[in-house]
């Protein structure tokens, strides 16, 4: 009994010391009458307009004016960007590739000077490239394609190279000596592969599972590693790759195309002529079946996007609470930081789980759809 008691006090003492220190520092700062020494005010005020002055693209709250717009800050953070913010004003410019009527334009995003300058008739407005006239006004319906290597693309490249490096080096080891027990990172990946094969793919698809296994393993590890990279708060992570609808759209489209391509006669018959449905109901049932078929990839797309984005928003929300409170009073900001950081740490743990879980769910549902597409239907037996 006394031992456990002493253990508690051992942890309680530093905890209270921190609380006292924070309270003391807060009171001192409040009396020192300089509440905003941590938040350097910048004269530039946020303007949301299509005029010359647009908001800075990659600025974090410290550099904003008195009023912090947490919602805007969070949305900027989870959105894509044309340069890779590191800290403060330091950011890595990324290549801009624009295809328009005159051909390809290829230059560095540093030419835009964070939205302050136009280059070759383009300018960053609200984090996006927009075509501008000579005088700097935005052309609303300009026709061009922005194929730039954005922050998400660059982060995805990092993740993909890491993935390829891990998997190819493991494959080399397997090729060299397949009968040995796994070693190093191989013993981390192999259980995942075997788990996916035996617990996810095989039961969902059935005997024809081997055809789909490479795709399913690829999406699992692709999503998983991009989720993990998204949790790294700085280079080479810091982007919200799997929380971007374009990424999940492509993944879901792949699943949909593979499902449709491999759909057997029974699968299509089920859609066009649902068994056991009276003739007069068919005009209603066929659209429903088609919508249901399209619904599957859409659900995949939204689930991954929403889960990852929501996780990022929650963490960013907790952290921006610190700055919101710090704007009222610096001491309050420090006090809230304890709560916020501990909640963020908790959320990070949860996000690690979610990173795995969403990759798993996407793979599981994809394999269920494949399973439905290749399943041998016995519709004749029902009639």
């Amino acid at each position, binding site marked *: 009994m006394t031992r456990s008691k002493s253990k508690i006090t051992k942890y309680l003492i530093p905890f209270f010391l921190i609380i006292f220190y924070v309270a003391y520092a807060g009171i001192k700062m409040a009396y020192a009458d300089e509440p905003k020494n941590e938040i350097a005010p910048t004269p530039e005020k946020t303007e949301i307009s299509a005029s010359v002055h647009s908001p800075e693209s990659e600025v974090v709250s410290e550099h904003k004016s008195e009023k912090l717009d947490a919602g805007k800050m969070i949305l900027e953070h989870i959105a894509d960007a044309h340069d890779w913010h590191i800290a403060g004003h330091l950011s890595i410019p990324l290549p801009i*590739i624009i295809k328009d009527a005159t051909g390809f334009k290829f230059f560095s995003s540093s030419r835009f000077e964070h939205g302050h300058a136009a280059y070759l008739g383009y300018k960053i407005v609200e984090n996006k490239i927009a075509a501008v006239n000579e005088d700097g006004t935005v052309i609303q319906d300009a026709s061009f394609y922005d194929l730039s*290597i954005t922050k998400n*693309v660059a982060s*995805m490249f990092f993740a993909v190279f890491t993935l*390829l490096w891990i998997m190819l080096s493991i*494959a080399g080891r397997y090729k060299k000596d*397949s009968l040995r027990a796994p070693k190093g990172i191989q013993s981390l990946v192999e259980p995942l592969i075997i788990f996916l094969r035996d617990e996810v793919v095989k039961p969902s698809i059935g005997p024809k599972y081997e055809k789909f296994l490479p795709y399913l393993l*690829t999406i699992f590890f692709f999503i998983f590693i991009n989720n993990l990279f998204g949790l790294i708060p700085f280079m080479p992570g810091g982007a919200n790759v799997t929380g971007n609808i374009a990424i999940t759209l*492509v*993944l879901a489209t792949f699943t949909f195309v593979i499902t449709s391509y491999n759909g057997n006669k029974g699968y299509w018959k089920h859609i066009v002529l649902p068994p056991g449905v009276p003739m007069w109901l068919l005009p209603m049932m066929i659209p429903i079946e088609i919508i249901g078929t399209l619904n599957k990839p859409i659900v995949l797309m939204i689930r991954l996007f929403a889960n990852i984005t929501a996780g990022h928003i929650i963490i960013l929300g907790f952290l921006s609470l610190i700055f919101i409170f710090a704007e009222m009073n610096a001491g309050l900001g420090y006090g809230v930081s304890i709560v916020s950081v501990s909640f963020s740490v908790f959320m990070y743990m949860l996000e690690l789980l979610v990173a795995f879980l969403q990759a798993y769910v996407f793979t599981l549902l994809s394999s269920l759809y494949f399973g439905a597409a290749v399943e041998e239907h016995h519709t004749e037996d029902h009639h």
Partner: protein
Amino acid sequence: MDLVKPEIGLLFWMTLTFGIVLFILSKYAWKPIMNSIKEREDSISNALNAAEDARKAMDSLKSSNEKLLQEARIERDKMLKEASELKDSIIAQAKKSADDEFRKKMASVTEEIEKQKIGAMNELKTQVAILSVDMAEKILRKKMEDRTQQEAFVNENLKSISLN
């Protein structure tokens, strides 16, 4: 809302990248990895089966050894029994033959003794006859010393002999 509006650039790069990753991983990673895992699983299950077979063979060997041992034991017991029977019969036979021999010898000895006894008896009879004749001669010699007595005797004897 911008958040749910897919951008063409990202779509393009994602499709390209994911396609390439899918191709490279399928060809150079998943294929060898899955093959190796399968190979390893097969080899493990083969090894397990072989071990099971070996165990079974061992068991059957052990049981056959046991059987052999049991048989040998039975054989030995049988042999011991037979030997002891043989011994008994040999002893019995020897006893019997010794007995017979003895009996035969005894019979012949008895016969000999009888023969000897008869011989001795005959001898004794002869001796007794000679002695009595001698005695009778002597007595007669003594009795017939005077002439009268001789004549009386002859007369007497002559009287008893009837001459027909």
